[in-house]
């Protein structure tokens, strides 16, 4: 079982990294023929960086659009961010206990946010109408990962030292020491995470890298000052 999980994670990591890299390459090559920043938009590059920063960190446009969705979405993403930082302790020794400890409560932000977003899909008529099964699937998958993770922190403790040494062995291809603690919740948690990693490059979760390539967000509103010529068009005019 330990080895099976190791292989699963080797594959999942490969798929995640290569898949997302390919997608990013595809995004970067996709032509953006027109200047279409959503106004009001900044007119300088530094302004665009600031806008992107506010968008990525504070979800500004969502805040201005639907406040309830913003509350849950932001809670979930910030919770997930903190949880990911906290999980870093299984892969390196850099995190002091003073940071690891308090971050455990982020799990609640994550779970509450996801629950809110899931309820939104059921409860708001126009949202339910446009919801595809995969929309639900992603939310439920993340929710199960969050709940199983929080279970291990707050309800049924697992052997965290064993988990860390397992992943240490996994990273160093030390097959002999690949021994995964036999906690059931842990295995469910890890399996779901692997599924998420596998599915990531072909799912809506790609909005994470995608936001940076969104022409309505990453362009400066300066069509009069700077003539916009798409790369492919530039080649033609030469």
């Amino acid at each position: 079982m330990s080895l099976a999980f190791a292989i699963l994670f080797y594959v999942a990591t490969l798929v995640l990294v290569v898949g997302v890299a390919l997608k990013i390459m595809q995004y970067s090559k996709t032509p953006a023929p027109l200047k279409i920043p959503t106004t009001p938009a900044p007119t300088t590059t530094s302004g665009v960086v600031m806008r992107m920063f506010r968008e990525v960190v504070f979800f500004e446009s969502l805040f201005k659009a639907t406040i309830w969705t913003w509350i849950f979405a932001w809670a979930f993403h910030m919770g997930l961010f903190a949880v990911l930082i906290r999980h870093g302790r299984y892969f390196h020794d850099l995190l002091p206990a003073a940071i690891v400890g308090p971050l455990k409560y982020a799990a609640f932000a994550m779970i509450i946010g996801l629950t809110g977003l899931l309820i939104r899909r059921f409860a708001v008529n126009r949202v339910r109408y446009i919801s595809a099964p995969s929309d639900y699937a992603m939310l439920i998958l993340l929710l199960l990962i969050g709940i199983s993770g929080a279970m291990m922190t707050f309800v049924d403790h697992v052997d965290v030292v064993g988990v860390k040494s397992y992943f240490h062995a996994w990273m160093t291809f030390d097959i002999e020491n690949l021994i995964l603690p036999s906690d059931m919740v842990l295995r469910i948690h890890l399996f779901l995470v692997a599924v998420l990693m596998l599915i990531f490059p072909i799912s809506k979760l790609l909005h994470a890298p995608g936001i940076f390539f969104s022409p309505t967000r990453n362009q400066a509103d300066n069509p009069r000052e700077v003539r916009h010529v798409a790369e492919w068009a530039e080649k033609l005019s030469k």
Partner: protein
Amino acid sequence: MKVRAFEHGLLLALAVVLLSIASVSSAEEKAGWKNGTSLAATQEKSCVRDTAFMRRNHMEVIKHARIDTVRKGVRGVDGSLSECIVCHVNKDDKGVPIPVNQEGQFCAGCHQYVGVSLDCYQCHATVPTH
């Protein structure tokens, strides 16, 4: 319609894998735990509960003991911190006990390894004092 069937199949497969993972029980692991150890631990004497349980839940055991002792005045309970230290403290060449919260020692070794705070010794003695 075809898409629906495919999705349902996928979901079913997922559920089956999940259930099978959950139902498979495997032998107790013996990995890890090289970070901080003590004579009592290496001799594999049994602690107040079995080792696998203590690895996961020692903090709950100590917490239970602390409530009994501080709030109710029950001393000498199983799993009191002072008893932990008596068993798990290491001694140097001259037989002088080494504080359990020193780097690499029984308590600090693992706590540092996984970044968990070790708050007990702000107040509690780190070697037996009587």
